[in-house]
């Protein structure tokens, strides 16, 4: 069941509250369709970024908490096994968030001058999901890694109002 909670602290009049509850009830019946990226959208995004190449699992590590109380700011570190030499290095790292409205989270462009194929950021996650990372290597192979996370209260839960 989808909860509808706004992050804002405002005083709601009884009328507004009832209107919103009504809207929420309708939305609950309709379900959150359209709010998240579909598997097809994720696959499409992957194809757009890496073409027809088939990612090989392994060599990509995602450091992500197992559980996040809120999805507003979740630390993520992606590390790719690579010597990062001019002959053998990581060209790009793509991060996909299947549980968010938009499937692609970030693309990082690296090269031999990076020295180490590791990038850390903080993510905004709409719900519990598996975060996927793909690494495009200099020999044109693609490696993949993934990590699952449970998000107790997703980021931007308000979006339920409109969908």
């Amino acid at each position, binding site marked *: 069941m989808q909860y509808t909670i706004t992050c804002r602290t405002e005083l709601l009049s009884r009328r507004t509250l009832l209107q919103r509850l009504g809207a929420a009830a309708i939305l609950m019946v309709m379900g959150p369709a359209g709010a998240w990226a579909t598997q097809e959208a994720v696959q499409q995004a992957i194809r757009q970024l890496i073409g027809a190449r088939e990612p090989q699992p392994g060599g990509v590590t995602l450091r992500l908490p197992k559980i996040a109380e809120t999805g*507003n*700011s979740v630390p993520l570190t992606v590390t790719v096994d690579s010597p990062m030499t001019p002959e053998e290095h990581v060209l790009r790292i793509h991060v996909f968030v299947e549980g*968010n409205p938009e499937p692609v989270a*970030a693309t*990082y462009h690296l090269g031999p*001058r*990076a*020295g180490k194929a590791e990038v850390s950021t903080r993510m905004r996650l709409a719900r519990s999901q598996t975060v996927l990372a793909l690494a495009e290597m200099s020999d044109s192979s693609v490696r993949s890694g993934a990590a699952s996370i449970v998000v107790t209260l997703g980021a931007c839960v308000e*979006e339920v109002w*409109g969908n």
Partner: protein
Amino acid sequence: MAEPRVRVPSTVKQGEIIEIKTLLSHPMETGHSRDVYGKLIPRYIIHTFTCTYNGEEVFRADWHPAIAANPYLAFYTVATESGHLRFEWIDDKDTVYATEAEITVV
């Protein structure tokens, strides 16, 4: 507007791999959330970050709305020579936030 913050080691050995940490204050509005009146708040995010080392790009990030507000970013580069590192963030209003850091290679 708050200044971007970067942490770069000031003196390093030649060839050393250094970690660079950056932080910028930015709302990173996703374009999916709504205001109290139910109106969509337009997308307003940093979409590109670049780091150049003495004028040569060594790292770039393309970002989408799944990056948290006040984006933090940590990455690595090889200390090749003394000089300056320039960091640039570009948002949806084409505002460029930039800062530089000096590095001494011994």
